[in-house]
């Protein structure tokens, strides 16, 4: 089996990769011999307490030197670290350029672009709920033509991997936008938003396996260069079925999850708080739901097919990112948290590096899919001291 990313760590002799065939058996694990290259050790014990990494420690002015332990090959995309921004939470690039150092960012995903310009919904568009955010923006965006004229010049200058998120209402729309974007080398990948729950007619692609496969295949056929990411909707009975349809259609990377359909009601007025009535729930509130979906897709579809996952949903810090990696993600994306702290992806990347050091792990890919499912005594994280 070919790995999208495989590397032998010289000092430990480990074979590491986001998709590790040695984890084919998801059942209980026996305690393993640490010296064996079969082992992906959960890490070593430290005597010093671990503290969250502060941004202040990083020198933002100097040219950043990437940490080789964080570099990941995501289905052919070479990311300096596995932390991306999520679509719709970071604009098209210029909006956060003074706050977020793109030279240190793993990757950037733009707001959805549709064929025609969309003004978006009436306000109220966003409401904060307990530990999260309910939004019904209505895919407000400048449309393909203005995107190419007004947004692309800046994207060309961005020193990070850029994915452009594409949404549509018809197969032809997706194909037209994706084909136009594929012409531009500064766009490393195209992420299909087949799941935005706010626009009634866009819903069907993300919830119907036949139509999903059809739209993914139609777009993939057009792409000469850009990698195809398919972003899955969690608003389905069986997400694995949709993931399989996306992979069958030619998805090279899967990203999940998009927002969960939700509703918030004002008990004073008996009216919905959002003008659109329903909205998409994001933020810390959805993290356990998102983790479950990532793990399910990883086990059922992504790992067997050798397709990497970008995991997202409520990630706030490095510990959250580690959870997604353990569940099966090869990279993570930060969305709603950017509204609170636009520098969060850099802090998370730094926190991941610290975590690797503390655990004595050679590479961040050694975490992907390492969720321990056996009986506790059989899979107690064992101490490993590298030679």
């Amino acid at each position, binding site marked *: 089996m070919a790995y999208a990313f495989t590397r032998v760590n010289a000092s430990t002799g480990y074979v590491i990769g986001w998709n590790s065939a040695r984890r084919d058996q998801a059942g209980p694990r026996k305690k393993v011999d640490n010296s064996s290259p079969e082992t992906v050790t959960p*890490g070593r*014990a430290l005597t010093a*307490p671990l503290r969250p990494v502060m941004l202040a420690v990083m020198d933002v002015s100097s040219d950043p030197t990437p940490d080789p332990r964080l570099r990941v090959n995501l289905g052919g995309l070479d990311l300096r670290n596995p932390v991306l921004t999520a679509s719709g939470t970071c604009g098209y690039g210029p909006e956060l350029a003074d706050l977020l150092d793109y030279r240190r960012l793993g990757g950037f995903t733009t707001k959805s672009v549709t064929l025609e310009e969309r003004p*978006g919904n009436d306000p109220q568009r966003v409401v904060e709920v307990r530990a999260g955010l309910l*939004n019904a923006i209505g895919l407000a965006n400048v449309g393909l033509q203005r995107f190419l004229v007004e947004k692309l010049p800046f994207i060309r200058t961005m020193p990070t991997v850029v994915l452009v998120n594409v949404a549509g209402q018809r197969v032809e729309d997706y194909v037209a936008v994706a084909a136009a974007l594929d012409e531009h080398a500064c766009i490393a990948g195209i992420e299909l938003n087949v799941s935005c729950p706010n626009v009634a007619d866009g819903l069907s692609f993300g919830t119907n396996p036949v139509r999903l496969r059809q739209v993914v295949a139609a777009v993939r056929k057009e792409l000469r260069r850009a990698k195809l990411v398919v972003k899955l909707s969690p608003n389905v009975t069986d997400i694995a079925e949709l993931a399989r349809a996306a992979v069958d259609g030619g998805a090279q990377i899967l990203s999940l999850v998009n927002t969960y359909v939700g509703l918030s009601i004002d008990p004073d007025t008996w009216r919905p708080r959002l003008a659109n009535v329903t909205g998409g729930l994001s933020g810390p509130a959805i993290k356990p739901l998102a983790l479950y979906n990532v793990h399910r897709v990883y086990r059922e579809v992504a790992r067997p097919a050798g397709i990497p996952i970008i995991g997202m949903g409520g990630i706030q*810090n490095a510990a959250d990112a580690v959870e997604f990696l353990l569940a099966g993600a090869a990279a993570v994306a930060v969305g709603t948290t950017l509204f*609170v702290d636009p520098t969060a992806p850099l802090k998370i990347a730094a926190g991941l590096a610290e975590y690797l050091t503390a655990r004595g792990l050679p590479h961040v890919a050694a975490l992907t899919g390492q969720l321990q499912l056996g009986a506790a005594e059989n899979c107690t994280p064992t101490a490993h001291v590298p030679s």
Partner: protein
Amino acid sequence: MRTMIAERKREKRCVVDALVVACTRVCREHVALELSIREFPASEPGQFLELLCRATNAAEPALRAWTDDGFPSLVNSELSTQQPFLRRPFSIADRWSAADDTVRLGVISRTVGAGTRWLEGLKSGDTLSLTGPLGRGFRIPSRETPVVLIGGGVGLPPLLYLTRRLAELGHRDVTAIFGATTRDLLPLRFTGDVSCDGAPAACIEWPGTASFPTIITTDDGTLGLRGRVTDGLSAWHARRSAATRNAVVMACGPDAMLRAVARVTRERGLDCQLCIERNMGCGLGTCLSCVVRVRDAAQPAGWRWALACSEGPVFARDELLDYSA
């Protein structure tokens, strides 16, 4: 071509931890925060800050020390944030340099919910994470132009910062009209007698070197002129000669007040800028929640959505579709 956020030149913004120098009550439901920061980008009156209304590190789960026989565990990180998740927008109410060369920022907060209740409990020595300066402030006219500032309730803070700036720029003909529903909801410190007939008087404490005549209005007549700020504006107008009435009005307050100010200023032929409030998810121009309709002849409908956090919160009255009719 229409003005896009990306095309507009913008001062660099920053995310910093500020030191709380003081948190003092100014009136019922209002506290004034004095914040100290080593460095802060240039700012203008009308711009705002996004304050994190919870402990700065609340999102960082505390990590327990590692032990010899096991691994450290996170103190249940699911429970680490019970406070408002998003930041909250607050106008810059003042800015000056302290003797120790640090930047001092003033914020006046009215307690209306979870976030503002948390702010109310801050103590001197605490830290507060803030993002700013955000948005676009008031466009200040030439020194000769008469200026009328109209503030309603929690709309006063940006105007206080504006008076400091106007004084620094040498403006002399400035009148403030500050109102609230009742006396103890005015976040002001009174130093002199307030007239109740709408005559501007020196009656409040000003930031910096500012000292401008002020008309106070309250809906219930508990202080100053009984009535609304628009009644104060009429009183001001009546006292002016035709030659000295040609003022620029700068207003901030609740939406209903801003609509009334828009109507009255249009009727009287006065130029007017409005500092509006919208529901803001980020203040950074990325969540697209803070939309307001602005006129745009290039659009088939004659208007488009603008982001109040980036193109505003200060707009010229006539740019705004919903404050004109």
